[in-house]
Each structure stands twice: as structure tokens, then as C-alpha cells.
């Protein structure tokens, strides 16, 4: 069974991570390096256990294009989020034996190092992936 682990951040979080103070503690280069090392090890372990399908991080929210239909015509909005709105920042797709196992994998992300205010606010979601249309049919 496949599950998606999702993590979130706001534009402000992205800015702080890039070392630009913006209402929050800025990350030091050491903080950033520690997080990078943690994520590399985390991904390597998942790869070795054969449970990782793929993982990606997303560019800052400011680079988002939102597409909608207005009066039958496609309309695009650039950077539609407020500075403090938390949006998808990265994801992992894992294939493992159970929801509980996927949750146990996501729990390990709680050990990711970072400035304490950021760690206190951080969260992740785990969601089962729909494998086929049958799963959705009423």
C-alpha cells in the first residue's frame, strides 16, 4: 500500500530558512546543514528498506501559479498565498505494509533538527493513496 507523507511551510518559513529574518528566527548555516544531513540520512534509510517510492521538496510558495476558470476562460494568479499561510513544502511517497508503518516513518521526521520555534510549529500529515478508481466509486 502507498501513503503520502506531507510537510508544510509558509513563505515566511522559507525566507527564514534562507537566512533572511522575517518575524521569526533566521536559520544559521549550521542549522541548515544539520537539517540537510538529517534528510539525506532519512531518505537513504528509506531507500535501503525499499519503502521509498519518491520524495521531492517544493520551491518557495511565491513561485506558485494558481489556475482557475473564470467565465469559461483560464485565469492564472501568481503567488496566491499570504506570507504566513502554510502550504505544501515537500512530500514522500512510501510503499509499506500498513498505515501504522507509514506513520512510524513520518514520526521519525519529528527528530529533524532546526530552530526551536520552527520545530515547535512543524507538522506532517500522512494520507493513504488511492490506487485506482475502484477505491473512489460509491
Amino acid at each position, binding site marked *: *500500500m502507498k501513503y503520502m507523507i506531507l510537510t508544510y511551510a509558509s513563505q515566511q518559513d522559507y525566507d527564514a530558512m534562507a537566512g533572511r529574518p522575517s518575524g521569526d528566527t533566521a536559520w544559521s548555516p549550521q542549522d541548515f546543514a544539520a537539517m540537510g544531513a538529517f534528510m539525506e540520512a532519512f531518505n537513504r534509510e528509506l531507500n535501503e*528498506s525499499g519503502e521509498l517510492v519518491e520524495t521531492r521538496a517544493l520551491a518557495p510558495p511565491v513561485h506558485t501559479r494558481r489556475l482557475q476558470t473564470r467565465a469559461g476562460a483560464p485565469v492564472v494568479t501568481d503567488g496566491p498565498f499570504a506570507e504566513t499561510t502554510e502550504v505544501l513544502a515537500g512530500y514522500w511517497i512510501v510503499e509499506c*505494509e*500498513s*498505515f*501504522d*508503518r507509514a*506513520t*512510524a516513518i513520518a*514520526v*521519525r521526521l519529528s527528530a529533524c533538527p532546526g530552530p526551536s520555534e520552527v520545530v515547535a510549529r512543524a507538522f506532517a500529515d500522512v494520507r*493513504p493513496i488511492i490506487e485506482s478508481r*475502484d477505491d473512489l466509486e*460509491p
Partner: protein
Amino acid sequence: MPETEIEGLLRRLAPQALGAVVRRYGHFDTAEDATQEALLAAATRWPEDGIPANPRAWLITVASRRLTDLLRSEQARQRRENAVVQRMLPEEWLAPAADRATADSDDTLILLCMCCHPSLSAASQIALTLRAVGGLTTAEVARAFLVPEATMTRRITRAKQAIKASGIPFRMPSAPEWTERLAAVLHVLYLIFNEGYASTSGPELHRAELATEAIRLARMLHGFLPDDAEVAGLLALMLLTDARRAARTGPDGDLVPMAEQDRRLWNADQVAEGVALITEALPRGPTGPYQLQAAIAAVHDEAPNADATDWPQIVALFELLMGMSDNPVVALNHAVAVAMAQGPERGLELLGGLQADERIAQDHRLHGVRAHLLEMAGDREGARASYLEAARGAVNPARRRYLHSRAARLG
């Protein structure tokens, strides 16, 4: 397909469907309710509409949808009450996964281990196992245990809450835990069997169904773990004991002691299956208490008549069993076997030693055995007094009638 066949199919599929739903979505407690509702829907619709092409998938789909509905209303209620549930995940979640890869058939094993979780009382383990793994409804479990349905509902609900609170993940126990958890599962199945077989009260019919259900579950477990000698031993013990069921009660429902049973009434197929199982399991080892008890039952079942019983062999098996656990009931049975092999005086000597064990000194079974041995030794007056003493302490009405009739015969 007749309805009894549909029921059999549903009972087999029940733990598989529940396992699949919990594996995918978690929420053991709510998923268990959802699966019961799916089973109920199937029991109503399949006899009319026919059995779907893939009945297991049908149950999983219906149970998953029902789970979604139940979770939504539960979460909406919690939001209304501003009481979003948060739980701390215990250390267990940070531990690596079990080193044993899980197969689909393991779902039932995982469920059995969850239902027999050490945080639950034996009564709760039994009730939850019968419902979640056995696929019985709460009403059926309540009837089997002669308690009101509302009581059983509360017992099962509390048990599920305890499992939820324990935060145990849905997976095979890790290797160091496994031995202990399997022992708990075997003990629960053994208790279910005994509840049915050695019923302490109530109408015979429902109790016999419990013994049959225990055999079904033990047979299923043996199918998953064919190389485990104690699992085979437990199944053999149940079969060899249950084989005597028809001979065990007389026409009036009175108990008939083994020595006086009509052995033609014993179920020869069950005896043969039990003997084959234990014969194969014993040399494989390691030898455990269920195998020894099965071996004792096999010695009894293989004797063409009571006088031909190989008592020295039974004495030896009981001595092995006593070496494994300090159980006064085993010691009591050992004393009986010694009396049969070496004469009542030797047995009575051993009873004298047991008299000092306060766990059994007041037990009616001790007095019952003493009465038999005194009768064998020719002490009619002493035997009569002991039979009456035993009858005063016995709970089972059939057993009391039996003890009184023995006393009256000596009067």
C-alpha cells in the same frame, strides 16, 4: 448457497476483512464496528443477491466506506465539543519494524495478538477475540457467556478503548515479544475451549458451540503456524478432549466419569486427528504443556477400555508437566494417575501433601479425588463423607448431582 455456508464463509473472512481495513486505515476500534456492519450487510444481502465474485473485496470495500462515515461523524462530534483527540505515540512507534516480513495471512495473527494484548483482562481478551477474529456478534458472545448483551457491549467497548489507549501499532510483534504474545493467544483459545467444555453453569447447547469455535480458531492458527509444536499440541488437546463429548453426559444430562463412559460414543475421527497431530508434534519439540496434556488425553483415548489405560505412561507425562509449572490441579491429577498405577494408598499419600497447599486445600476437586481413592481403598464411610464434602463446594449442578449419587451408593 445455503445460509449456513454463507455464515461459515463470513466467519472465515471476518478477520481478513478487518485486518485489511485496519492495515490500510488504522482505527482498530472503529474499524471493528465498521467490519461488523459489513458482515451484517452481507448476511442480509448475499442470500438474496447471491455471493459477489470477490466476497473478501466486497467486505473490505463496504467496511472501508462505513469506516469513513463513522470517522466523519466521530470527528464532527469532536469538533462540536471542541475536543479533538490527540494521543501520544509510545516509544514503540520509533522502534524499527519487525524483522519478519508480513504476508496477507498474517492479518489474522496480528489481530489475535492485539485481542490478547496484556493490557486486557482475560474476560476481555476472550470476548474481543470471539468478536474481532471469530466474527461472532456481541449478542452471540453474550449468549455464550450467559451475560446480558449490554454487559458484553460494555466489555468489548472497554477492551477496544484499552487497545487504542495502549497505542499498539498494527504489525507483527517483534521477535523478542512474539513468544510471549503467542503464549497469550494460546491461553485465550484454551480458556474459550474450557468455558465451552467444562461449563460451570447454564444450558449445554451454547457452551458446546464455544468449544467448537475454539477448535475452529486453533485449527486456523495451526494452518498459519504448522511448524509450531505447541499450537499443534493445543489443537490436539482440544480434539482429543472434545472427542469424548457425547459420552460425557448421560441421558439426564448427568456427568459420566471417564472410566464409565461408553467408548463407542467417542468421536473416532477426532481421536485419530488428535493422535496424528500430537504424534507428529512431540518429536519436533520443544515440548510444552499443551503437548503434554494432549499426550495424556491421547493415552486415554487410545485405550480400548478403562482397564487397559496405560497409567504408568500417564504418571510419567504428569511428572514432566509438574516439572514445567507449579500447578496444584496438575499435582491433583498426578495423584489420581499414581493411585491408578500403584494403588490408592500411594495416591492418598500424595493428597496428604497437597492438603498443605492453600491454593487447593479447600477445592471441591481435592475432596472429590479423595472420595474416589478412599472408595478404591475400601473405606466406604470415609469416601461417603468426602463425596458429600465435595458436593458442598461444587458449583456445576450436574457435578453436584453426580457427587451426591456416588455418596448415596455408599450410604
